[in-house]
């Protein structure tokens, strides 16, 4: 008879107090929940069942078109660049700006595995060939909803430092 020995801080009671179990305002609450869920998921409805196609990029800038077919290669293989370009740019940035913090010599050149040398610079090396930022950067970044903040400071005009002197 556990129920008969119901206890609270004031002592023992003969019976558990009876509380009426009732769902007050059932219709209003359920209707409110449905409306809430509909509102929260509203942005998802228009795209339901659709597939957004991957962006079709136009990567043949004048500079790339001028190159011979065999020279048309990036610093690293395309697949590697696609996966790792952000890490590479961060490494370049830290090394170029901070290499002399601890006595290392000034570092500004990037050497590819097959020995080609490039100035480690987004605006002066990458954007020199890929001069179309809208096609080359923005399309994919918009598609993947990433917002890199390079262009708040760095300029899109992909001119070489030598020309800017």
């Amino acid at each position, binding site marked *: 008879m556990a129920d008969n020995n119901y206890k609270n801080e004031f002592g023992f009671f003969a019976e558990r107090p009876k509380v009426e179990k009732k769902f007050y305002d059932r219709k209003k609450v359920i209707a409110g929940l449905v409306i809430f869920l509909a509102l929260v998921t509203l942005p998802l409805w228009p795209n339901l069942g659709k597939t957004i196609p991957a962006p079709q990029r136009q990567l043949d800038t004048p500079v790339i078109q001028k190159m011979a077919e065999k020279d048309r290669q990036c610093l690293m293989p395309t697949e590697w660049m696609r996966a790792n370009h952000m890490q590479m740019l961060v490494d370049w940035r830290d090394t170029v700006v901070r290499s002399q*913090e601890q006595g290392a010599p000034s570092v500004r050149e990037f050497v590819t595995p097959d020995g080609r040398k490039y*100035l480690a610079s987004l*605006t002066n090396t990458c954007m020199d060939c890929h001069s179309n930022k809208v096609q080359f950067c923005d399309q994919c970044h918009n598609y993947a909803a990433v917002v890199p903040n390079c262009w708040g400071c760095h300029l899109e005009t992909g001119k070489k430092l030598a020309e800017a002197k």
Partner: protein
Amino acid sequence: MGIDRREFIRIAGLSTLLGLSGKGAFELLRPGQVEAALEPQKGALEGKRWAMVVNMQKLDDATASKCSEACHRVHNVPDFHSPKDPKDALDPAVINRYEIKWLWAEHFHNAFPGEEQEMPEKIKTLPFLLLCNHCNNPPCVRVCPTKATFRRDDGIVMMDMHRCIGCRFCMAGCPYAARSFNWRDPRPFVKDVFPGYPTREIGVVEKCTFCAERLAQGLMPACVEASRGALVFGDLLDEKSKVRETLKKYFTIRRKTHLGTNPQVYYIV
């Protein structure tokens, strides 16, 4: 049966070792390709302790403003005094606070406050060119919470704009007012955008960098090139350098040496 105590200790020890040196082991097996592939650039000017001498005997108002214009042009420093759109004009009460300056001219009593009585009257109206002093003991570096400003081994006090969070501790630390804060987006106020150097964003602190980017290309700082010999730049630890020869020849003063920051911009008076 399970493992005995000896076996357990051996496994525990080995896994601790692996845990502590795990990343090192990976690096040994497959060294980082990207970092290793960056090489020093040839043709860069290199020094052990860069310093500048300002020869006030050669510097007149025209040359001084030419120097600071050259500097501000190649570093895309904004000018808020004459905006293209009159709506962007600033209240004269706050324009000094908004102003961005890397290299600018002041009279003696502003550049060397409290030292007026020691100096001859004629130098008091000269345009003393002021800039970051690239101190040996820089207070801005000590107070920066993110190491956005740091001292390079060649003496240049450098800014890493990517790390600056705009707390302005460095501005409070700098006794020379050499640092400016971007209270508004500077890009619309850069007159002729110089493509070889980035602009800045709203909310970062900026200052003179002794033209670190030009030194890396083997060029002298922009102000030195524009100064017609009034500014001398070079390696203080190189006995044959022009800076050393000038310092040997002339009496020089430095700004606020009593503060112990050991500034590296010298003035011939």
